[in-house]
């Protein structure tokens, strides 16, 4: 790799002597210095304690108050705001499908995961998979180990179930892969998704995992 994955410019990956002497593991660069600085993480001091929404205080935000009232607390950590360069990134990677950009944030996501946590990605539907040929969430995880135990129901099916089953179940967009259900029992789970918008998706996934016997659930998203 001699080109920056974002701007396509030349990558100067010469090892500097002080780096070699530092005995740190060498991680090959994927971004040039200029683009690296574009993707600088925002400071995380002022954000909602639950969902990671960036706001003026560290109090729980209104959305999360609502979830709490429904006894569905979920702690989410977001790396970035869904804005500017990250919006552009997801447009190119997820919607247009430039898979070369999949692992740009692997290291940053990895640094937020604890050693004893089980990583579970939010899945995409079969029809999305057929068209996109990848799940943007597992793509983002890169080399990070995960358990792909959630299955996204087709959108149409989720609709038609309405009225037949109880309301909450009709809206539940996921199912558990029964073959893997034993592997999640009593685990500390961290759910991964690309964007946290209203939190609905992650809350449904968390609820389903709790019903299937996990010890705890929290979540990490690239953007909020």
């Amino acid at each position, binding site marked *: 790799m001699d080109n920056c994955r974002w701007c396509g410019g030349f990558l100067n990956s010469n090892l500097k002597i002080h780096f070699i002497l530092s005995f740190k593991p060498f991680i090959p660069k994927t971004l040039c210095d200029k683009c690296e600085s574009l993707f600088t993480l925002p400071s995380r001091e002022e954000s909602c304690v639950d969902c990671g929404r960036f706001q003026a205080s560290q109090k729980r935000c209104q959305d999360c108050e609502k979830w709490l009232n429904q006894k569905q607390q979920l702690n989410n950590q977001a790396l970035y705001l869904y804005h500017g360069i990250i919006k552009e990134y997801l447009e190119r990677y997820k919607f*247009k*499908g*430039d*898979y070369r950009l999949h692992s740009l944030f692997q290291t940053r996501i990895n640094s937020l995961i604890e050693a004893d946590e089980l990583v579970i990605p939010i899945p995409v539907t079969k029809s999305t998979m057929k068209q996109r*040929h*990848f799940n943007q969430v*597992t*793509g983002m995880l890169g080399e990070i180990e995960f358990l792909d135990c959630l299955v996204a129901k087709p959108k149409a099916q989720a609709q038609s179930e309405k009225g037949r089953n109880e309301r909450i179940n009709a809206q539940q967009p996921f199912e558990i892969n029964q073959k893997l259900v034993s592997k999640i029992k009593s685990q500390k789970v961290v759910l991964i998704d690309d964007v946290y918008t209203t939190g609905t998706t992650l809350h449904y996934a968390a609820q389903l995992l709790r019903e299937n016997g996990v010890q705890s659930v929290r979540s990490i998203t690239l953007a909020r």
Partner: protein
Amino acid sequence: MNQLDITGRLLPDTACDEMILNNHALQFQPAIQINHTTIHCTRCASDCEKAEAQLPDETYFCYQCFNLGRLDSSMKLVHLPGINQFEVVHPVLTWKGRLTELQQKCSDEVVKAFQEHQNKLLWAVTGAGKTEISFAGIAWALAQGLRVGIASPRVDVCVELYPRYQAAFANTSMILLHGKSEEPYQYRQLTICTTHQLLRFQDAFDVLIIDEVDAFPYANNDSLQMAAKRSVKKHGSLLLMTATPSPKLRQQYQVSYLPLRFHRHLLPKIKIHFCFNWKRKIYAGKIPQKVIFKVLQKIERQQRFLLFVPRIKDLQVVDEILSKKYHGEKCWKTVYSADEARMEKVQAMRDEKVLFLITTTILERGVTFPGIDVIIFGGDERVFSVASLVQIAGRVGRKASRPTGDVDCYIGSYSSNVAEARKQIAEMNRKGKALG
């Protein structure tokens, strides 16, 4: 969507309706060919490294023509050979202008080339009236019910050409296609588009004109050149137009040559001024006094102009210094290729809302602002190729009522590009004089 929307096109099957796909006349080919270490894209004819192009489910995508919508190895490209189904409304040519004797000669040669299914290079100096010269040939083709394409590597050029062709062929259906326009594709007798859009055509045009054929990114881009050839029908004609053809182009094609401007005045010469340390100055965030003086003088005289700088990052330096040195209300804007507001800024210049633009080679050609001068700052930098310098100088003196103007070029050393550009202008003026 109907079958006309796909005739002469090369589209992924995923973009077509089920009904269209059932047409027996359709031709299918795999979008991506998988080879040993690379993949080959049928649409853009590029090779991609397998390792880079791989998707996790063992399909591959082309990252070269990605911006036109991702093609992957699970797709097929669909094509329906070009059919012409146009209603010809007379008069086809609604342009009321008249050609000069010299323009007429080139125009006749173009008509003849189209009639005889020949390819041709129209080499006409800046301001010779290439567009008007092309009208008669296009009118002939349209009147025969043939399909015509006009493409340029530069989106600005397409945007400027479109209303001119609309006025000249007011009874003909046409469409403008480029990456920044929202308008969806439609089957039209006359298509004006960027050369990138040609990647979506195959055997479509009976006549294809490529304006500013030596401009970036078309020149030296095998993929775009392949697309241009592929978009022309087997017995169609390709007309290339430019003021600055490379020696290679001049050899490859039969040439129609016009060395004199439509108003019969000679091309403005490039005046050089030495600023031996301009490079060191700009690194230190400064620009030579001479350049500042020239700019202030033009502002003083309310003379409209373009100020060319070598690099995008120089724009800001020059902008800041001028803001400090000039105390009146800011009367300029900076423009570069990836500038979001590029089209608006060019329009502001056209509407005389600003006195001048500070820009890079992106505005070297295609765009015409009547009665302007130009200043080239750092003309000895390599980005100013011979063709660039000739084109930039060619922005000046385009109006019959102001057929001259100043081209001031500030250099640190007398580079071979500057010398060659001056030589070419002198040569064309010598030939022009002999005709005029």
